[in-house]
């Protein structure tokens, strides 16, 4: 009691108390804004979904298949060590219901027999294809075409290994059609995926549609026959189930809401359509970042804003594409780490966008949201946890208050997750089995305790790896692209 009366200690106390208070307020406001934002998103996505379902009633997608008015599409699928499945996957790409399209498989220097299998199965031969180096890439070893006319729409590029973005760039260079469909080769595409995805390009009249994103579904444990999901089942592992919920949440709620306000900044690398001319104008994918899918969309948006052309990034919520998600913690951890780094890198590269009214919704809403919530979330959550633990240990009663806050957030996350499952049920009703629904609901309850902390941890690791690894191209990370077209000045090699 005596010590506390000395001026120094009073000062110290004052600062400490102030710190505790301010931190408390910050966490509270942060949580509150998350709640507000997600509530808004729920409303926005509901409106968007309602409109979409209504629109679908009047769309005759069969007409798109044969209409001469429909644009041509170049499907680009990079393959790295896919020998086991490449032939089957290519075959299903070749049987999509669409008349004017080509399939470009890019063998990104695989170490297995990917190339040989392709050559053998599709009677391919090396050609003297004159190759346009519009975007710089690693060396092309050969471009193959089939001698069998049935496979006329197939092209195979064999190149030195340079990563996914580099492989996509090689494909973009030889693509002939108006629209690019960039996909993961191991994705399962529904046969009407192209007709549905191409619709926003055909429909918009006042704005130019620069890209269209699709929903990615979780294929684990589903019955897949000849490239289509025939029976939906939730995965066996909690890790897998969690991702089902997470994907529904991200696609059906998140991206739908962003589309509503035309603020979509990320199109999943597993399935996205782009306007080819525009992709070439901005210089294609940027192979130096691990978040190439997000970075390209942001750069394209920037370009349009800088050219002052009204534009739109669209999104089609129909279930059209499925992928196997990693169920092992190790691989999932790496993926999340990479996603986090990709996000940070993209945001760093495009700092000019931040709170810049010139970039419209992207500058004023999407970018701040991404930097504050997507990027900083693990850091905030981690600090909040430490804060609470310290309070609990020191026997501070206001810890109760923080625990209450955590309970609030927990309830909220459960609500949002169950909401997205309801959403799925109303819109598609793919998981028909009652048991599946129960499993998903259990997953929702457990997720915040068993999975979320790991996601936060992987996100933190992503931050750490970003800071550690930024030396390689530090200068650029610091300044970012001053203009969207600046990417052309950066050598890929």
């Amino acid at each position, binding site marked *: 009691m*005596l*010590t*506390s009366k000395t001026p120094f*200690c009073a000062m*110290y106390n004052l600062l400490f*108390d102030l710190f*505790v*208070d301010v931190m408390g*307020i910050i966490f*509270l*406001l942060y*949580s*509150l804004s998350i709640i507000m934002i997600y*509530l808004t998103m*729920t409303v926005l996505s509901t409106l968007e979904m309602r409109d979409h379902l*209504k*629109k679908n*009633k*009047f769309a005759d997608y069969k*007409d798109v298949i044969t*209409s*001469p*008015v*429909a644009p041509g599409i170049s499907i680009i699928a990079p393959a790295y060590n896919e020998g086991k499945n490449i032939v089957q996957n290519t075959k299903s790409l070749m049987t999509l219901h669409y008349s004017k399209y080509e399939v470009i498989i890019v063998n990104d220097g695989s170490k297995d027999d990917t190339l040989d299998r392709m050559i053998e199965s599709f009677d391919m*031969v090396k*050609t*003297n*294809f*004159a*190759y*346009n180096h*519009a975007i710089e890439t690693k060396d092309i070893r050969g471009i193959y*075409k089939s*001698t069998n*006319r049935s496979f*006329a729409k197939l092209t195979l590029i064999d190149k030195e290994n340079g990563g996914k973005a580099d492989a996509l760039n090689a494909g973009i260079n030889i693509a002939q059609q108006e629209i690019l469909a960039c996909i993961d080769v191991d994705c399962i595409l529904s046969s009407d995926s192209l007709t549905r995805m191409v619709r926003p*390009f*055909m*429909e*918009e*009249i006042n704005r130019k549609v620069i890209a269209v994103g699709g929903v990615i579904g979780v294929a684990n444990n589903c019955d897949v026959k000849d490239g289509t999901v025939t029976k939906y089942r939730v995965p066996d592992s909690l890790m897998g189930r969690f991702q089902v919920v997470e994907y529904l949440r991200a696609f059906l709620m998140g991206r739908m809401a962003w589309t509503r306000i035309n603020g979509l900044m990320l199109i999943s690398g597993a399935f996205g359509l782009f306007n080819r001319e525009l992709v070439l104008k901005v210089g294609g994918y940027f192979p130096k970042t691990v978040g190439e899918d997000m970075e390209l969309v942001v750069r394209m948006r920037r370009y349009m804003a800088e050219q002052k052309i009204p534009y739109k990034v669209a999104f089609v919520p129909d279930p059209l594409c499925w992928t196997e998600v990693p169920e092992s913690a190790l691989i999932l951890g790496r993926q999340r780490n990479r996603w986090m780094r990709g996000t940070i890198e993209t945001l760093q590269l495009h700092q000019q966008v931040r709170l810049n009214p010139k970039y419209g919704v992207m500058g004023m809403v999407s970018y701040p949201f991404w930097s504050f919530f997507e990027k900083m979330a693990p850091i905030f959550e981690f600090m909040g946890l430490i804060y609470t633990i310290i309070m609990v240990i*020191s*026997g*501070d*009663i*206001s810890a*109760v*208050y923080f625990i*209450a*806050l955590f309970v*609030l957030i927990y*309830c*909220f996350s459960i*609500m949002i997750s*169950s*909401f997205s499952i*309801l*959403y799925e*049920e*109303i819109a598609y009703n793919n998981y028909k089995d009652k048991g599946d629904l129960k499993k998903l609901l259990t997953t929702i309850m457990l997720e915040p305790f068993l999975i979320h902390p790991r996601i936060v941890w992987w996100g933190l690791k992503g931050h750490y790896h970003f800071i550690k690894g930024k030396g390689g191209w530090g200068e650029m990370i610091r300044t970012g692209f001053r203009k969207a077209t600046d990417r052309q000045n950066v050598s890929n090699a």
Partner: protein
Amino acid sequence: MTGFTKRQKLFAFLFLHQLLFSLPFGISQAQVLHQDWVQVDSLLLTGQDIPGLEFVIVADSLFLPADSTIVRFHKDIAQPGRWYSDTLGSYVEAKALEQHIPNEMRDRASIVYILFKKESNPEALLEYLDNLIRNELFAPSVAGDGGELMLLANRTAFKPFYQIRLRILSDLKMIVLLFSLILFFLASVFLVGFMFFVRSKKRRTEVMTQRFKSLCYEPLSNLLFEYELDELKDFSAQKIWEFFPNAQADNHLFKDVMIQEIISLNKNMKGDFKSKLKLIYRKLNLVAHSFKKLESSQWDIVTTGLVEINEMDVLEAAPIVQKFTHHENFHIRSQAVATYLNISNDMTLQVLVHQTFPLSRWQQMTYFRIIRFLTNQGTKVQVERLFDSYNESVRIFGYRIVRYLGLVDRLEILKEKYPNASRDEKIEILKCFDVFSFTDAIEHVHQDIYTEDKDLYVAAVKVLQNIGTVISQTILIERIEHLVDFDCLKATLEALKAMNPVLVEKELESSLKEEIRQMLAHLQDPILCDV
């Protein structure tokens, strides 16, 4: 000890109301003292140390037994029969000692207050305590554990600002937390309720639709396969309804399902089945149901109505449909224009010519399907009217139709339009020239071969590939020198190669440009040529 103060404050902001009450409490205590002596007594009983105040018990004419328990009393030498106790620091102690005096003598004993070593009366003591409290030299404690802490908080006179700030912060936090809680609960209740409502509504509709479908299907098939068109014509509405024994003729959903079934059958069937279906639709007066939909304020219902009118060829609806052809809603507008094209019998396509909104490709797809259908029926559609529209996208659509439907006789008009056309139109017209190898247009194409515009250039070169003359070859050979763009160069070489392979060999085989050699190799590759 530092933790103590911090804890005290956090304690305070957590139990905000306590803090709020603790300040006024001190003040009210001071005011009450004037009126109530009992309060002083109870205050003294709390055992707090009040500076300068001591107590002595005085007993008159006391006969004390020679009991050892009262050894702390002394005889007063000046006044016999009077006893004094020791000076006691605590009121509680004094009270305890008083209890030791035997009962029968207790009323002759009393506690005397000693203020600064002098005897004092209760009034003076009251005054003194009042002063102490008012000047915050002494704070009466509150019963209970936290009392001392609360007093300390009050006594820290050097921190009033801090206390106010703390209160505001705590207030704010509390408000924000409460606000978010309320918001959260309201929103979640609302959202979940809404979702369940939508879900159950949707379920119900689905179940009903399925039921109605199964009700419709058999009777419709029977009507279609068992009766000839002429027989159906003689049936009354009553008689047709009889085929649907469980029909709910007044139910909107039933009518909707029925119309849907008729439309999809109509889409997939041919010949007099179509007429039979339309007849049933009319006889059952479902047409009124379709018309009603046009009055709705929801765009999807209006559009559904238009679709039904379109599919069932309700010709008399044309004037109403026309009203929707400039609607600002994309879907209503598209469907209205399509329906109008189909039912209006207007071969001059005025509804398209006067469109003010740009035509999207989606709309073009729909309209083209109808125009193709009309043309296949043998109707003479005046596509050339579209070329005169003020709307560029409509003009372009016109040129496209020429190409898609192979309307070779319109090429002359295109040739006339070409010189004054916009860049996008030119590209579209060039494609027409290309598809039909329209040699008459060669002069126009030559004019644009010097353009800087890549797309226009490539389109022009492609035409020359088919219709080029010796002059074209010379121009292109000359152009090659100046071309930088890969696609332009490739198109040029391809055209030249097609027109005059010998010339290409002579002029370019020895070219030093790596790019040109690559392209020539490409053009000679048999597999690539085949594709």
